Each structure stands twice: as structure tokens, then as C-alpha cells.
């Protein structure tokens, strides 16, 4: 505390002369959006690898029929932990990291609005995931009831149970604080000329995402709290004998869970909307309608949750409503896809790594969206539900969807972060291996699902062998391809020096500051107009 006040007085005349402090304190006590952003990104990469390793366990076991490596209960733990870690530890923090780094630069703010809270949002995460990962060593094993934590099954978890609940609480706490910070930064810290509708798409999609986060993370916290009290304090929320209902949990969970999936895709839309115009050398088509479409998606995401529950025995009217509402989401999402294509249309395109990842995103996300639409058709979903068709759907929207967008963003902004160009050849190699293997992994899963393979099983009937083997080979290929990315990062500072602009077609405030972006960026509020006119 005293340290803070002393610093303060010293900085009275000008904050910006101070560089980062030395040692671990720079990271542990950081209030700098760039440092915190870096920590988020590194943390998420670490989690991606841990979650991915668990996926490798899953895929190894499933490579051929029969049990080879693990026991069924451990297999279920792997599935559960894989999903929790990927969703809450890899994808979400990666987007928060990008937000931390880029939003202040894009809107001309000196930092995030609430810098100390920003630090706390981050440092809760290692605690949360430390607790979650420690459950692997506990009596009764790690949670194995699926990432959806449905009761009564989840109540059969061993000692890990309360740890699971509280780690989810912590993840929620971190996300809520992160989201508050994003909202306040965007609403309160924009440069004078940066009106709302001039804001870059990435900023917009993050603003909407942050609202979603604040609205649904507390609901998840409520849901898991009820699990906790049902387990330890005798409440009967999810017990029919007491007047509750196990399905009630599913309603509350998916009220969170469905917006959650858009939390994982809207910032991805934002990243892609930044990159495509840059490499098409043309302004983003229909900026405003993109904003409306994203808002529409966010709104609709609150009223479609029960499409995950088409087999629980809802009354007919409920099913009809949720089917129609779900189908509607295809419309605003379509608007986004069409606008990206219209942006490319008659542009002057080049294909650097970020652009390649973005293009693959548009293709493969759309395929994932199509299977989503098929899932929305209730009678058909009776057949698809809880099969590998669903697994195929959501990995298409999450891996070549969210993860590719994160990769694209990383390549796109890397020169701005490090001051050096990454190795383009290696980047392209990373892209091509990833793209080939991701399809090899997840496309066959559509067939498996249609042919009748349920999800969350450690072993399967022999007729499913071929596609499972292909998927497993693909998965290992995809996993190894990610090592190329590590190589890119490790050599990121070896490349030639980057210019401020970095890309020929780049646009926006972040490209007006030096590369690497100085520790403190904007001392005086920049003129946003400069950036916005760069295309005219």
C-alpha cells in the first residue's frame, strides 16, 4: 500500500517516464494492460497444451476399439477436464488477453480503466486452475461428470467435488471482473473522436461479449452453488422427491451455457473482422450491420438454451419455441459471413498467415454453423443428440473457429507486441498442417455420430473403428502442429524489425504507435479520425 502511494507521488508530474519494475514483481503486481495481456496469453497457451494433452489421452484411447490405456472413470475425467480447461482456461483467457493488449491501443486509452482489478482478474486464474488440476490427484479422481456437471451424476464425484465447484466460482469471478473492466474501458476511455460507431469491430464484439459475461457468469455461479448445497446442506433443488427437478439444473446451466458459446465466438468474429479488411486492402463491409448482427446474436443467445435439452421431455410448446429461436440465429450469423465475403470481394488480397487463418475460420466456422443448424431441428436432434455429430459440430466452431481466430490474432499483432516480424514460412507451415489435420480430426466425427456413436464413451463397437482411427491420427497431427506455433513464438524476436504499420493495409490506432508498442502508449488522447480515414 505504501509502495503505491509513494509511486503515486513520484509519478505526479508524469506517469509515463516509468518503465517496468524488475523481477517477478513486474508480473505479480502488474497494473499494465500490456503485461497483463501477455500473462493472459501465455497462461492460455499453457492451458491449451494441458487441455490438449488430455484430448490426446482421449484420442489415444479411442484410436482402436477395446480398452488400451485408461480406465473408464479416468477417461470420463479426461473428457470433463479437457472441456473445462479448454473453455475456461484456454479460449476465454486468450480473448481476454487480446482484449487487454489491443482494446486500449485501439481506442486510444492510456490503460484499462481499472488496472488493479485487471491484475486480480488474471491472478485468480492460476489459482482456479491450480485447484482444478489438483483434483487429478484426489481420492475418487478428478471430476468425471462431463463439463456440463449434470446432477445427480456430478454428485457422485469424490473429494474433488467441492474443489470443482469453487474453481468454477473463481473462474466466474475472474471473468466478471475482466468483463467489467472491458465495458468500463470501452465506454469511458475512448479517445475524443472515437464515437461508438467508429469503434473497430474487435472492440465492438468484445463490448457485447462483456455484457454477455456479466449476465451469465453469475448464473453459472448460482447453478453450481445449488449443486454444492444439494450435496452438503440437504437442499433439494435437483431432487424430485423434494419438489425440485434434476432438469432444472440443465435449464440454469444452459441459460449460462449457450451465451457462453457466443462468448467464445464473438471476439473471434471481431479478430477476423480486423484481419480480413487489412489483407483485402479494403474497408470492412457493412460495419454498422456487423454491429447490429453481433448484438442480435447476443440477444438471441439468451432465448435458445433449451436446444441442448431436446430429449429431456419438455412440453411441446417449449420445444417448438426453442427450435424456432435457435434457427433464427443463422440469420445474423449469416450477415457476418456475407459481410466478410463482401469485404474480400474486389479487394486486393494477399495471404499472410493471419489472413490464412482468418479465411480458414470463415470456411470452417460456417461448416460448424451448418451442423449447428441441423442440430437445431428438434426431431433430427433426437438422433444427433449426445453423439459424435455434436462433438463434430462444436469442435468445428471452437477449434477452427475460436482457436484459429486466436491464432490469426496472435500472428496479426505479434509484430506489434515484439517489434519483429515472425517467420512467415514457419507461420504458413503451421497454418497448413493445422488446417489439414483439424479437418482430419473432426470431419470424420460427423459420420461417427450419424452412424450412431454416442459421445463420452471410452470404448466402442467395432464398426466405428475406421473413422476413429482417422480422427486420432488427425488429432495427433494437429497437436504436433501446435509445437510449430511454439517455435514461432520462441523465435519471434529474431525476425526483421517491424515497422509501425506492420501490414501494408493495416488500419486503426494500434498501427500508429511504434512496434513494439511502448510500455505506456497514449500520453495525450489521440485523434481517432486519423485512423479512421486511412482507407479514404
Amino acid at each position, binding site marked *: 500500500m505504501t509502495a503505491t502511494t509513494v509511486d503515486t507521488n513520484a509519478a505526479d508530474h508524469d506517469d509515463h517516464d516509468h518503465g517496468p519494475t524488475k523481477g517477478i514483481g513486474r508480473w505479480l503486481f502488474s497494473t499494465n494492460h500490456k503485461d497483463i495481456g501477455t500473462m493472459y496469453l501465455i497462461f492460455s497457451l499453457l492451458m491449451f497444451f494441458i487441455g490438449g494433452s488430455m484430448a490426446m489421452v482421449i484420442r489415444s484411447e479411442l484410436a482402436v476399439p477395446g480398452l488400451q490405456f485408461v480406465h*473408464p472413470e479416468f477417461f470420463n475425467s479426461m473428457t470433463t477436464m479437457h472441456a473445462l480447461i479448454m473453455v475456461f482456461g484456454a479460449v476465454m483467457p486468450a480473448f481476454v488477453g487480446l482484449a487487454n493488449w489491443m482494446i486500449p491501443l485501439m481506442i486510444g486509452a492510456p490503460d484499462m480503466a481499472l488496472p488493479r482489478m485487471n491484475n486480480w482478474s488474471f491472478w485468480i486464474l492460476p489459482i482456479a486452475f491450480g485447484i482444478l488440476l489438483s483434483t487429478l490427484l484426489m481420492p475418487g479422481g478428478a471430476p468425471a461428470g462431463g463439463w456440463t456437471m449434470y446432477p445427480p451424476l456430478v454428485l457422485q464425484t469424490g473429494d474433488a467435488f467441492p474443489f470443482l465447484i469453487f474453481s468454477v466460482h473463481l473462474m466466474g469471478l475472474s471473468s466478471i471482473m475482466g468483463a467489467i473492466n472491458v465495458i468500463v474501458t470501452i465506454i469511458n476511455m475512448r479517445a475524443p473522436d472515437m464515437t461508438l460507431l467508429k469503434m473497430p469491430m474487435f472492440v465492438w464484439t468484445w463490448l457485447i461479449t462483456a455484457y454477455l459475461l456479466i449476465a451469465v457468469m453469475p448464473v453459472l455461479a448460482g447453478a453450481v452453488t445449488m449443486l454444492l448445497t444439494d450435496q452438503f446442506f440437504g437442499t433439494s433443488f435437483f431432487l424430485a422427491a423434494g419438489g425440485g427437478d434434476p432438469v432444472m439444473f440443465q435449464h440454469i446451466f444452459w441459460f449460462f451455457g449457450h451465451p457462453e458459446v457466443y462468448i467464445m465466438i464473438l471476439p473471434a468474429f471481431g479478430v477476423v473482422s480486423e484481419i480480413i479488411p487489412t489483407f483485402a486492402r479494403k*474497408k470492412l463491409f457493412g460495419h454498422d450491420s456487423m454491429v447490429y448482427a453481433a448484438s442480435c446474436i447476443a440477444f438471441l443467445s439468451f432465448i435458445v438454451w433449451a436446444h441442448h435439452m431436446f430429449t429431456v421431455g419438455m412440453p411441446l410448446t417449449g420445444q417448438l419455441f426453442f427450435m424456432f429461436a435457435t434457427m433464427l440465429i443463422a440469420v445474423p450469423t*449469416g450477415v457476418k459471413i456475407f459481410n466478410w465475403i463482401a469485404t*474480400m470481394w474486389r479487394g486486393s488480397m494477399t495471404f499472410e498467415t493471419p489472413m490464412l487463418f482468418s479465411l480458414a475460420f470463415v470456411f470452417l466456422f460456417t461448416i460448424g454453423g*451448418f451442423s449447428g443448424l441441423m442440430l437445431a431441428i428438434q*426431431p433430427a436432434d433426437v*438422433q444427433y443428440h449426445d453423439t459424435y455429430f455434436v462433438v463434430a459440430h462444436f469442435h468445428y466452431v471452437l477449434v477452427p473457429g475460436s482457436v484459429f481466430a486466436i491464432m490469426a490474432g496472435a500472428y496479426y499483432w505479434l509484430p506489434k507486441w515484439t517489434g519483429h516480424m515472425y517467420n512467415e514460412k514457419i507461420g504458413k507451415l503451421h497454418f497448413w498442417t493445422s488446417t489439414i489435420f483439424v479437418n482430419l480430426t473432426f*470431419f470424420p466425427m460427423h459420420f461417427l455420430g450419424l452412424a450412431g456413436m454416442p459421445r463420452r464413451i471410452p470404448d466402442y*463397437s467395432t464398426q466405428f473403428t475406421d473413422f476413429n482411427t482417422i480422427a486420432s491420427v488427425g488429432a495427433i497431427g494437429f497437436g504436433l502442429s501446435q509445437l510449430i506455433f511454439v517455435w514461432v513464438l520462441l523465435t519471434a524476436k529474431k525476425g526483421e524489425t517491424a515497422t509501425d504499420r506492420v501490414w501494408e493495409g493495416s488500419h486503426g490506432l494500434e498501427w500508429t504507435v511504434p512496434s513494439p508498442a511502448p510500455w505506456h502508449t497514449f500520453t495525450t488522447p489521440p485523434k481517432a479520425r486519423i485512423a479512421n480515414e486511412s482507407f479514404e
Partner: protein
Amino acid sequence: MIRKSFWGLVGLVMASTASAEWALNMPKGVTDLSAETYDLHMMVFWWCVAIGVVVFGVMIISLFKHRKSQGAEPATFSHSTTAEVIWTAIPVVILLLMSVPAAETMIKLEDTRDPDLSIVITAYQWKWHYKYQDEGVEFYSSLARQSVDARRRQSGVDVNGVENYLLDVDNALVVPKGAKVRLLMTSNDVIHSWWVPELAIKKDAIPGIVNETWFKANEVGTYRGQCAELCGKDHGYMPIVVEVVEPEAFKAWVNTRKDGGANLASAQ
């Protein structure tokens, strides 16, 4: 590249409609509703393919024509209300076209009135219990011995040699052909889900709640399915087998069961 693998695989799906053994697609099944479900599935699938052709087509053309290396100069347009209205309206229309038959099928699926036969299914970790409401027959059904022996780690059995590995049970559910069978589904412990693809039925078995569903099989045969809701460590090991038999055979079967004949069902 992406395009190639995508269309290659789409081609595979199409091929599958021709060859049945190499299961790539949803089964057409043996009930009217399973056929309707299949049709719905294919209808939406073809819509997606059609939209995909247009969307990816335009994109690919652009990717080839509008590249800098081809000397393309960037245009300056960045907005067109007409275009945007069109590509909002067309999907809406397509969705409407899809939603009508979907709703129709859904309504039929939910209509469990006037059954010829009612069976109460209770799920357990990890087996099924079937009780024919009026026939006075009830029994448990769990994973067949052969699979049980083979499924363990280092069991020494090559699972490829086990017939219907993981999809066979000791006592199958026997129902008459052409009868409307109503299933009343509940669970004794955690949530399970009773699924037989060929009958296009998947319904959750929830403790404390009874769910209803129904089917009417048009063809005699053996149909296999599995539990479709994660229910603990042996979730992968609680298959379902339904044997659809001629009505007379069904009567005979009921009688043998009543007499206490233990395993005749599987002998059939």
C-alpha cells in the same frame, strides 16, 4: 485445399446413401417417424450444401480473382443496403421452409396417445429394467457376457472377434411389429438416455420423472442402441437391443416369459 477435403467428404456422404453397410449417414430406420426424421435431416443437409456452394463459391472466386498478385486494385465500396436486405431475407425464407416440416414431425413425435402396448423402462447404473405394463412381464437387460469378458483392459480378447461388441445384451426387449409401443422412461439413480437409432427414439430417463415416447416398428428385426447420456463409469456399457417380432411370436414370447422361461427371448 479446404475446399477439396470438404467436397470430398460431402461426396462420401452422398455415396453412403447408396451403400448401406458402410454407415456414414443416419439410418432411415424402421418406423414412419424415423423415415421422416431421416428426410428432415437430408433436407436440411441439402439446404446447407446448397448455401455452402453459393457462399463458398463466391468466396473462392474472390480468392482467386481479387488477389494482389493478379494485379487487383481494391474497390472502395463498403456498404450496400440492398445487398444486406437480400442476404437477410433469403435465409429467413429458407429457415421458414425448413421449420414447417420440422414442426410437423415434432408434433407427431410427441403424440403418445392410444398405445397398443406400454412398457415402463427404468434405468440403473448400468443396466435397463423393462416392465410390460399389461402383460405382467418384467426383466433386467444388461451387457452380454461376451462383451463383458472382452471389454476389460488386457482382457486378452480381441474385441474385433466379438460379435456385436458392446451392442449385445442378455435379455432383449421384444415388441410386436406394427403395434404402437409407448415407452415410459424413468431412472433409479442418475440420468440416462434410451436410444435406438433405427427407431429414431432418444429419451432421457430422469430420476423422479417419467418421460413418454413411442414408436411403431414396421419391420421385423433386431435393432441396437446405447445409453446416450453420461451416467458414470460404465456409461459406454449399457446397450439396448430391441427385437421386433410378428404379433403371434410376441404372444408366444409373453407366454413363455409368464411361465418363467428365463432366457427364451434371446433364443428367438
